[in-house]
């Protein structure tokens, strides 16, 4: 086992390998590790150096959300190692395939990094610990049961003898891995559950941290690209001769009949030549579509007779018809761009018998598959090495830029090509937050309760656009996030006897995608703002109105938020709004405090956000995810809108696609509701309550009910 393991490990690219220049080519061992004799893989998750340094392997992608640190905490907790000695590395997806997917799923989306893999990574740590203890026990000739481990030190109870992990690692690797290790109870955690500092901070402060966009390989050239401005369109013609003689230009390449790239010595040369390149496009059928056409398409769906039913109880329509009071409202949510801070990029090196690519991805295995497919090579002749992501937010789950880079590299065998998208390319070629309209119809009975509620969604399906094979008889179940009838993922929180939630799928040509929070974003706005409208129609306080209907866990987290915020106790001139939802396995709620000046200037003073995510693996990072999710969610609510003209997205950079800056940042206070009996997500859930809490507060401040996003399109002066 030792020899093969060593070879396999040597083959791994760690962040150290990236920092020190690449281990280019296959069969070339990871020389640094090879030089370090005695570095020992205990199992897939744990590597121990003779000096007790612990390397924990992380399969999921780090994009700022802290999963690298959180997962390492879980492994280290069971491993009983010294946290100060822990570093991490990524195995490659090629390695994963070669080892029967020993690291499981690499995909990093849906706030699943920790909640989906906590069980097997903890087992990895616990198994390694037991092997290390067994090795020490064997050396001392004592029963393993008399030995214990803490802080990377193994102690024999009877004799008081001690040894360290580094000393027994080689022997431990030869031990039979125990079958059924018992995982610790969360109440005994010493490393997990603590608000430890991130492991990956220092290099981000000195410029030393390398991102995909920073990679440099010997003889590397840089490419930049323009893809069809209209999704579904084609590249008609381009005049390469016009730019081929420009400084630094090496080649002009057409990609998949829909894009054109310029390869040059440097990015600026490539970009300058691409800007000068005459290109003609065939926009295809999407070329005649503009935002107003899409709005009309969705409006038609609001009243269509055909719709997929996502949740149904009793007879909503009948109950609404018989109700004492009936109210109706139409909401809509626009296309939005992820706008990761680091634009899309990927580096690839193709030769006729192998292909390697490097870059930021949320899905290493999908990136490898895209690499192999574009390379025209079997997957075992390819590999993909992940870099740290300069933001992901769902955008980097897609491998379109990987394919492009490999196809360009294929045109220049043996030369590494770094493809960098301009911000303009990034802004116009996203997988956009799906567009959705919603008509809500509610009936209030004589007692002031909801007699019936119909929620009609009309708009775009992400699955139809990206993963049509995942549709269920044509229906996209993801559209109903937050409206689900029970379940552990995204259950509807209200007990309403007569309920109908249905979806008229309308798919414009713009490519939709997963965008941090995904469909909980608009669903929380639709439901939680309309809930305030219903409460008002019933003449009740929005909190008390909800309390009558909320299921216990939803209610508990809402109560935690309003208690901390002091519901009804806002300072003079400041107005409150609230919202709750369940998403990504977690229950979340928020109270927003805003004021609006006579001139219509909005100020968001304070947000109190509560989350019940079950086990809280790192409370300090959870707080940061919550604060960050509000920046993301409020940027979307205030400014986020991509409009369509002649089939193309109109916003091309941050000057036309504004986002929140420091001066607009409210004070975010988070409440982590301890429950500890399940594993919920963290990165996404709270984003959904940002917008509705603020919109509800704006209504109370101005009397204006904003039903179409973003807020910037509205005059907030008092009605």
């Amino acid at each position: 086992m030792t020899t093969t393991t060593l070879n396999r490990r040597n083959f791994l690219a760690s962040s150290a390998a990236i920092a020190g220049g690449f281990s280019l080519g296959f069969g070339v061992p990871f020389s640094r590790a090879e030089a370090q004799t005695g570095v020992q893989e205990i199992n897939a998750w744990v590597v121990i150096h003779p000096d007790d340094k612990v390397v924990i392997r992380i399969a999921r992608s780090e994009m700022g959300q802290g999963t690298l640190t959180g997962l390492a905490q879980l492994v280290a907790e069971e491993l009983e190692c010294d946290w100060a000695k822990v570093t991490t590395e990524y195995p490659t997806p090629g390695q994963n395939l070669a080892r029967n997917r020993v690291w499981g799923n690499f995909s990093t989306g849906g706030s699943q990094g920790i909640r989906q893999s906590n069980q097997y990574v903890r087992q990895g740590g616990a198994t390694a610990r037991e092997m290390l203890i067994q090795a020490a026990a064997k050396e001392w000739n004592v029963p393993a049961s008399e030995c214990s481990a803490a802080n990377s030190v193994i102690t024999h109870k009877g004799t008081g003898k001690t040894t360290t992990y580094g000393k027994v690692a080689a022997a431990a690797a030869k031990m039979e891995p125990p079958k059924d290790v018992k995982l610790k109870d969360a109440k005994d955690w010493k490393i997990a559950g603590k608000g430890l500092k991130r492991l990956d901070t220092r290099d981000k402060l000195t410029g030393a941290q390398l991102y995909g966009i920073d990679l440099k390989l010997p003889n590397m050239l840089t490419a930049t690209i323009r893809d069809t401005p209209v999704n579904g369109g084609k590249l008609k013609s381009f005049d390469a001769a016009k730019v081929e003689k420009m400084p630094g230009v090496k080649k002009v390449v057409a990609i998949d009949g829909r894009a054109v790239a310029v390869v040059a010595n440097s990015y600026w040369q490539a970009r300058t030549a691409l800007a000068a390149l005459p290109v003609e496009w065939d926009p295809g059928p999407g070329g005649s579509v503009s935002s107003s056409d899409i709005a009309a398409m969705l409006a038609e769906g609001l009243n269509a007779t055909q719709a997929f039913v996502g949740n149904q109880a009793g007879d909503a329509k009948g109950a609404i018809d018989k109700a004492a009071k009936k109210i109706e409202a139409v909401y809509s949510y626009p296309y939005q761009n992820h706008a990761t801070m680091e634009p899309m990029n990927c580096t690839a090196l193709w030769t006729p018998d192998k292909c390697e690519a490097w870059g930021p991805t949320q899905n290493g295995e999908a990136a490898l598959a895209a690499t192999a497919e574009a390379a025209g090579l079997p997957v075992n002749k390819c590999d993909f090495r992940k870099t740290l992501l300069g933001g992901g937010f769902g955008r980097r789950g897609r491998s379109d830029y990987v394919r492009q880079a490999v196809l360009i590299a294929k045109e220049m065998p043996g030369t590494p090509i770094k493809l960098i998208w301009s911000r303009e390319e990034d802004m116009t070629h996203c997988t956009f937050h799906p567009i959705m309209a919603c008509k809500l119809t509610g009936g209030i009975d004589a007692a002031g309760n909801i007699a019936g509620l119909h929620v009609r969604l009309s708009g775009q399906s992400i699955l139809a656009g990206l993963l049509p094979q995942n549709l269920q008889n044509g229906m996209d179940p993801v559209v109903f996030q937050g409206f689900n009838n029970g379940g552990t993922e995204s259950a509807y929180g209200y007990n309403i006897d007569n309920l109908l939630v249905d979806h008229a799928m309308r798919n414009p040509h713009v490519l939709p995608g997963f965008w941090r929070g995904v469909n909980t974003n608009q669903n929380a706005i639709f439901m939680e703002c309309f809930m305030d409208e219903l409460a008002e129609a019933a003449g009740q306080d929005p909190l008390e109105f909800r309390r009558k209907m909320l299921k216990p866990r939803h209610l508990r987290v809402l109560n935690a938020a309003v208690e901390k915020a002091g519901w009804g106790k806002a300072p003079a001139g400041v107005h409150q709004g609230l919202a709750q939802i369940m998403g990504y396995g977690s229950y979340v709620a928020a109270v927003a405090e805003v004021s609006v000046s006579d001139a219509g200037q909005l100020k968001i003073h304070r947000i109190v956000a509560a989350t019940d995510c079950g086990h809280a693996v790192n409370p300090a990072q959870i707080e940061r995810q919550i604060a960050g999710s509000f920046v993301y969610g409020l940027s979307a609510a205030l400014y986020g809108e991509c409009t369509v003209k002649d089939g193309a997205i109109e916003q091309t950079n941050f000057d036309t696609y504004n986002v929140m800056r420091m001066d607009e940042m409210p004070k975010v206070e988070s409440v982590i509701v301890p429950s500890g009996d399940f594993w919920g997500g963290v990165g996404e859930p709270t984003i959904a309550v940002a917008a509705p809490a603020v919109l509800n507060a704006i209504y109370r401040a101005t009397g204006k009910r904003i039903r179409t996003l973003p807020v910037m399109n509205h005059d907030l002066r008092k009605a």
Partner: protein
Amino acid sequence: MVAVTVNGKIYNTNADPRTPLLWVLRDDLGLTGTKYGCGVAQCGSCTVHIDGVVNRSCRVPLNAVGRRKVTTIEGLAQGGTLTKVQQAWLDNDVPQCGYCQSGMIMAAAALLKTTPKPTDEEIDAAMTNICRCGTYQQIRAAIHDAAKG
């Protein structure tokens, strides 16, 4: 050949004099700590100091730098010792993805030079860089910390 002084070193580069300083730093000088985010002076990822003053290097052509001294994020920590601002960033565990943080730190360092004890309003006015991960709250705390120390 154009000469440019960066972090106390004089570099000679063959880059076209109209090339933005950002891309000279990144592609010609290998100083990739300065980041590309927008290219239109909106995001601040590319923030450097030129003669001590904050500049968005994506909009500064090489030939406009002249003999002025450029400082990038790589020029802050000397001999592995973090500056006060960087240390405050570390203590507050500020970065998420980290991509914007070079620019943020450069902007904060310049602010603290001219305004050693900034108020929240002064921080708001000076810190106009974009962070998509949303680290603004931690950045504010770190600046106040750096001002204390």
